[in-house]
Structures are given as C-alpha cells and as structure tokens.
C-alpha cells in the first residue's frame, strides 16, 4: 500500500494525555492518524457517522497518560472497557498482522488486555505480567538509554540495528515489568528465545545497570517487549518525545539538529512495514 493510505487510530479515553505528540509523530511521516475516543469504537454516545471500527485502521496506538486516573491499576480500566466489547475483534486484528503499539500507559493497557507478552495465545484471559510500582516508589521523569535487543521480530524497530543505544526518556510511576515470581526466569528465557525482548535499559557505557539508569527496577532491565508475532509492541519510555533532535535533553551539547531524534525510527519502522506488508 501507499504511505498516504495508511490510517492510524490514536486511541483515547479520559486521562489519556500523550495523544497530541503521538498523533504528530505519525502525521509528520505523511500517514493519516486520527484521534479516536474509545466510545466511538464501542458505539456509545455517537452517531452512525462518528462510529469507528478497528478494521478502519492499519495500526492502533495507545498513547501514554493516566487513563481513568490509573486508579485500580495503571491501564486496567482502559483495558477492561476495551476488552468487554472488543476482545474477539482485537484478537482477529492481531492475527491479521495489523500492528498495535502502546507507550507508557499504553504498554500498561496492552499488558492488562492480555495482548502482551502474548507468548502462548494472541490474547490471554487474564494478564500474564504486570507493570509494578517503581522500586523508588516515585514518579520518575528522566532520560533513559535503551539498547535495542531485537533480532528483527518486532515490526516497530526494523530500522534500528541490534545493539544500538537510543536515548528515549521515561516518565512513569508503574514501569517495573514483572512476571509471576516463581516463573519469572522461565518467562524471561522464553521472551529471549522468541525474540520478544525489544529494548533494555543501559548506562552510558552500554552496560545493564541499576537505578537510575533502570528507572523502575524492571526484571532483566526490560524496557519494551513485543508479542510472539512481533506486531504488538509495548514500551515504557516515550519515543514520541524524541522525534526531533531538539527534543533531546542534551541537544545543546551534542548538536546534530539536522539528524532525526532517537525515537523517530519506531514510527518509521512500522510505516515501512505497513507499506511492504499490505
């Protein structure tokens, strides 16, 4: 398909608040993003013209924020509302190979939905992992360095070489990826074997390091994962906040304002993938 035919739904409910910069990231690449309130997918309080179907779009993005206040558990309410009516459709969407990305709160939603880690089934009945409160027990807004670990499975990082380190900032309270304690090792191993690990937190030397470089205490320093097929992707740090160089925290030191920001490739990769695949 052609680039300008690609339609991306930027989903939102109350408390979603990174939708503008997420929308902008896609729009800058020449594809067609659209803000879509979840109620328009569920057919609530909207006219026939306003109703939307997920199959109207080639890609779904669940942006960051505090959906429904993140009360209960981060992302849980958004996920529950979505799952109540769209579960089967979502599974079908993913099976058809359409990509879904969740950033920060969006990652939390994908975990709560059971779309990630997506090891054994496309969408699990109950969440198989969780994003816990940071070890610091605080909201952490800081630059983080991510090492790209994926061997080519994830459709959102095709343009990033394995081993490359990218500066993509974090801003969250609940970002510590965990699996059931007794199975944690097994899960991590499976993710590795399946090429589902996408990004890990590292220090400036490129080493897996503790706080503050790993801002939340995530197992194995994991910052982002994808499902088995590589088309559902979640990450805690915000690639849409470093689309341009001048958004980097240290650009007055590093210059290179003509070069793209470190997060841009996440969006470019999926657009490129869509052009090839559909």
């Amino acid at each position: 398909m052609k680039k300008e035919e690609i339609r991306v739904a930027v989903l939102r409910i109350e408390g979603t608040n990174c939708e503008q910069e997420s929308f902008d990231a896609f729009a800058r690449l020449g594809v067609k993003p659209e803000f879509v309130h979840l109620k328009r997918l569920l057919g609530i309080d909207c006219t026939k013209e306003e109703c939307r179907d997920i199959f109207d779009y080639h890609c779904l993005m669940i942006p960051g924020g505090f959906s429904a206040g993140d009360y209960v558990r981060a992302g849980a309410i958004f996920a529950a509302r979505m799952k109540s009516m769209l579960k089967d459709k979502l599974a079908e969407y993913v099976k058809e190979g359409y990509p879904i990305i969740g950033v920060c709160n969006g990652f939390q939603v994908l975990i709560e939905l059971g779309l990630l880690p997506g090891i054994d089934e496309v969408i699990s009945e109950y969440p198989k992992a969780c994003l816990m409160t940071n070890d610091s027990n605080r909201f952490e807004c800081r630059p983080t360095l991510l090492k790209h670990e994926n061997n080519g499975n994830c459709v959102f990082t095709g343009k990033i070489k394995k081993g490359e380190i990218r500066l993509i900032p974090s801003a969250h309270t609940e970002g510590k990826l965990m699996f059931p304690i007794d199975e944690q090792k097994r899960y991590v191993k499976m993710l590795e074997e399946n090429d589902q690990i996408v990004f890990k937190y590292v220090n400036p030397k490129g080493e897996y390091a503790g706080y503050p470089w790993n801002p939340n205490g995530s197992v194995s320093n994991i910052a982002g994962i994808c499902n088995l097929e590589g088309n559902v992707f979640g990450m805690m740090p915000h690639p849409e906040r470093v689309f341009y160089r001048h958004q980097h925290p240290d650009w007055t030191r590093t210059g290179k304002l003509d070069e793209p920001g470190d997060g841009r490739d996440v969006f470019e990769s999926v657009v490129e993938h869509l052009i090839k695949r559909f």
Partner: protein
Amino acid sequence: MGGGNGLEKKGRLFLKCDVPFELYDIDLQNANDEDLIYISKNMGLALSLKEMKRIKDYFSKKGRNPTDVELQALGQAWSEHSCYKSSKVPLKKYIYGIEEDKIVAREDAGVIEFDKDYYYVVALESHNHPSAVEPYGGAATGIGGIVRDVVCMGAQPVAFVDPLFFGPLDLPFSRVPKGTKHPRYLFKGVVDGIRDYGNRIGIPTVAGQVVFHNGYIGNCLVNVGCIGIMRKKNLVHSRAKAAGNIYVYVGGKTGRDGIHGVNFASEELTEESEEKSRSAVQVGDPITKEPLIHVTLECVEKGLLEGLKDFGGGGLSCVCGEMAHDAGFGAEIYLDEIPLKEEGMAPWEIWVSESQERMMFLVDERNLDEVLKICRRWDVFAVPIGKVIEERVTKVFYKNKKVLELDTVFQTGGPVYDEKERPYVFRKKRNEKDLLFDLPDLKKVFKKLLSSPNIASKDWVIRQYDHEVRGNTVIKPLQGVVGKESHGDAAVIKPLEGSFKGLAVTADVNPRLLEIDPYWGACSAVDEVCRNLVSVGAKPDSLADCLNFGNPEKPEVMGDFYETCRGLRDMAKALGLPFASGNVSFYNESAATAIPPTPELVGVGVVEDVRKCVTMDLKKEGNHLYLIGETKKELGGSEYTQILGLTGGVVPKTDVSLLKRSMETLLSLMEKGYIKSCHDVGEGGLAVTLAEMSIGGDVGIEVDIDGVAGGKLREDVALFSESNTRWVVEVEDKNMVEKNLRDKSIPYVYLGRVKGKSLRISMGDKLLISEDVDEVRRLWKEPIWHYMG
C-alpha cells in the same frame, strides 16, 4: 465555619423560613453593632462592621431582611481575596498601566501576542492557606484552579510553574508552632499534590523555585502558574454577549468541600485553622478535569461559546454575577439541576461552594444541543441552569422559591480601602552599613553553600514532575550531560508544530532581600527574571506577579506592599514589561510567624528560534570563561552571610540601563552563536555559579578572580557577593566576544578556562578553592535527598 451556618445561637437574629430546605432570613434590621459583628463571625463571612453596616443599609432601603444565601454571596464577593480591597489603591498607583497596549485581555489570565496568528496566556495565583492546612489537596487544587484560568480564555495549557516556600527542613520539632505542620511534611505533601494532579492532566511542570526560610514556618506559600497558547480567533471573554445567553454548568459535582475558601484566605491562620477550615480546602479530581479541558477547547474551537469562566473563589455566586455584570446584564439562575456530591446541601452552600473541576459556559440557544453532545461524548456532566437577563439583578431560585435577589452593581461593588482605611508606614531601614567580619575559611564556606537547601539540587522535586509531556519542552529544567545535570536558568517550550518560535519561563524572588529592603528586593526580583530568561537566549516579554504578604491591617505590612509595588513598577516600566497577570495574597501569617514580603514573579520570554537556545552546562575544555557585569560589596541578604549567621548589610541594587544594555548584547551574541553556555549569577555568588556550570558539564575549570576583585574587594566578596545583572558565559572566540562587550560598554572580566576534572579558583597566586567536580556534585546533590528520602 464550614459545614453549618452556625445559626443555633442568638436565635432571634436567624429566622428560619417556612420552606422544605434550610433557608434563613437574617434579621439585620433589628441587629445592633455587636450583633452585626456576631453575624459576620458566626456565618464565616469575614466582613468588617463597616461592611456589615453597608449591607444593612442596602436591605433597609429594600425594606426587607437578607437571606443567608444573600449574605454569604456578599461575604464572598467582598472578601479580600475576591475584591482586592486592600491592594487596589497601591496596585492602581504602581502596577496597572505599564505597557497596557501589549495586553490583549486581562481576565482570569493575561493574554499577549505570540505571533501573527497566536496569543500566549499567563496566569499566576497563590494557594497558600489551603496548602498550609492540607498540603496535598491544597497544592493539587491550586494546579486545578490555575489550569482552568488559562483554559477559560480559550487556550491550550502548555506549562506549569510552581514556586514553593517553606520553613527550614531541619527545623527541630520543638520549634514547630502549635497547629502547624513540619516543613518536611508540608514540602512532601505539596510536591505530591502537584505531581499527582499536574502529571495526571498531562501538562508539563517546567519551572519553579523552592525557598526555605524561617518566615514560612507558620505559613508556607504555594504559588502556581500556568502558560497557555491559543489561536487568536479562539479568544473567549469571561462575560455574556447578550440577554438570553444560557448558563451551562459543566464538569464535576458541587460539594461541601471548598466552602468559605476565599473568606478563609482573607484571615490569618490560627491554631484552630486545621480543625475549623479543613472544609475550606477543595478536593481535587484530575480525571474529571482532563476531559473538561478537552470539552472546553473543542467547544471553543467550534465557536460554540459566547462566554466562558471557570469556577474559582466564590463558586457559582461569583461566576454567575460577574459574567453578567461585566457585560451590563443580570442573571436568573435555578439551583435545582446542579449535581451535588451529597444530599441535604442548603442553597447557600450550593451557591458559594468552591468545588473543583467546574466551568461555566454561556451558550446561545441554537448551539446548546451541540455543546451538550460534545460533553456527553467525553462523559462530562453538563446542564443549563439559567439565563442572562437585561435587568442588572442576580436572581436565584431553589425549589420554586426565590432565595437571592441582589443588584449586580451592589454585589460586585465591594469596598476599596484607601490610605486612610489601610494606613501604611515604611519600616525603619535596618543596618544599611557594610557588614564587618573576619575572613572565614573559604573552602568550608563554599562547601556549606553548595549544600545549603536553598542552593542544593532540587532534582528530588523536578524528576517527580513530568516536565516533557506534550513533547514541547525543548530546554528542560535540568541541563547538562545525561545523568549529571544541573539546574537550568529557565525552561523553553516550543508550543507550535509548525514554528521554531519558543516561550521561555522562569520564576524568581529572593525574600531575604525584601526582608531587608522591599524596594531593592523587588527590583532584584525583576533583575533575576531578566537574567534567567536571557541566559537561555530569550527576550523578556511579560511578567506575572503573585504578591504574598502578611496582614494588611498592619501598617508596616502595607508599607512593605507599597515599597514592593514601587520597585516592581520602576523596573518593569523601564524595561517595558507589562504585568500580564497578577494575584495578591494577604494574611500570610500565623500567631508564630509572618512571612517576609514575597512578590513571586513569573517571567515569560520569547525565543525567535529555539535551535539557538543556550544552556548553562559547560561544553568543552579549552573554552574561555567571562564574568559579565560588575561585582560590588553587596552582601545583605546573601546566602553567604546567612550561612555565617549575619543579618542586615547592604542589599544589591540595580541599574536598569546597564541591565538593558547587557541583555541586548548577550542576546545578540547568542543569536550569532558565540555563547556556548551561560548562567546567571544568583544565590551563592560567582563561586556557586561556576560550580553549577561544572556540575552540569561534568568538567572542571581553572579561573583567576583577581580581575573581579580589582584590587578593591576582599576575596570572599568576589566569590560570594550576589550583585545583580551578572552572568558567567563560556565562549570559544575570545576576540569577537570581547570586541562586542567593549563596543557596548558592558563591564566584563576574563576568568579563565574550562579545564580538567576539578574546580580551581584562585586570586593571583593564592589558590582559594580546589575541589573535584564529582565531590562538588555530591555536596550539591545530596542534601534534599538526605531530608526527603
């Protein structure tokens, strides 16, 4: 105060009406002076006898007694907080009228041109009393309130600013006054509140300051500022357009929280404030607020609103009356449909509640359905509650009974106190002489300065706020090598997708200077705002002021207020900077302490191209360092003398023409790319400025301050004086920069070079300070973490 009218006692004055809800007529006609005072106190009106008498006269002429709803409405409208009765005269004399042409509108927020299609919007307020009683809720709802002020002009909020003032963190518990909370508890609660509310509604908190001082032990200050951006066509005024406009109540429910907030803010805090006034603090709900912003801006964008105002102090009473009155109309309001948080609320409570997350839309009848539909899509409650009428009267009905009828002119015509009613005296000048003392151990003092909480790293606070949501924060509050950052002078937002034009924001005041001399202290605050904006490459464009003072009934407090305003005026006028938005907060005192005069300033600067911005972290070994400006023996109010336990002394003065010249020259050098880093010289003087630049750049310096002393100043003065209008700049091309400075007759001193891994400052052949950058960082970074964990 609070939950009930408290009308049980003196029953003869309070006549219960024969209606199926709580409503009283207040027998003013038969009330003597003592009764009037009793009524004001008992109903929590905070009105003086003179004001009560004026109300009595008004109703005598009407031939009836007021209802409790009417008296409460007047208590709100005539409170210090709502009508600025003590400050109006000095504000008119000094603050209003500076560069008024630049201000497009000044309502809940100030509106100023950004470029040919856009305005920017500024608002600044205090939320001091609520935060002193309930820090988490008080600070959170402070954020909630200020963001509404910006949204109700039709603007998208793009940044928050949070200046905070507390008692010292190491205050022994034995010195915490009764009924007061420990500064650590307040600091944590306030930061938690700002974090949880600000982060949840998705607006970055990019600037602020945290000041610790004994004067804030009994009454902390929480000021909140917000910047917004809007298309020019979207400007909506806070007033009606025509009779027949429909009042649409939008947002959260009305509850008993936030009752008497404005009256509460118009009295001193006491030991009993906690118990008596908890209900005056509103409860915040950011997840009602966030969609409320979307709904409002969508309606604005579609041109569906005739008028728009947020519910601030005074609640419905203030909103309905003012929106009609400001356009020469009246209002007819029905309380029955208003959603309530609890059953059994009396009409007066509904009328004056200051519950959060509420907006009032004025809508033309033909747009009503569309507005209600947009609200429904976002699950935001909305209901029409009345209409604008020709007659200049506010009428309120509840369950078919008229519970209020007031002439809008009377209601909004609150008292204004002139110099006779609010007398002022100037304090006797304190010790204006030079301080005389022996030279202390400079290395020790330097380390103490770095670790002083007023100077030490505030990353504990800054990293808890999301400072880059929306992706527009191009210059962050923390600057430097990733993982080694230091404090920036100002943050810069790039608010528009298609333009590199930016808005720089900073918040400044040094209360210790005002404590000694309010006039020069106020001048210094303006100087500091300008320095900070220029440091990042921004041209100062406007100011917002939040004037925090003690009890205005004390002539010396009013004296400070006059002197402060005079200082602000002299500087702002000479620099051509309008006050776009302002707020006065009086009665910031408790039995134990009164605050020093604290005119918090938020400065907004404009950057033509954000790609030319400069940060404060040193960039490259071998570059040259200069001190711009003159260093004088002005140690009064400095962090240095504070640490030595000295009081008084000569405070820094300002020279506006030199400031103007310096700003222009530095900005032009930055525009040409000659300045690699720039940091203003503020608290802690030159030594701390250099240290902070080293910390952020993770690189050392080797400088000689002989030229700073110029053979006249002692080394400690050269190192630690806080004289105004000074910057340290890092440059590569020495000749070009020196030539420009000479041409413009800007005083400057060559200091030395960026070099190595340690901070080495000498005077001639005498090495004064030598410390590894890592150790300097540790001393500076750890203190706040040590206290707050």
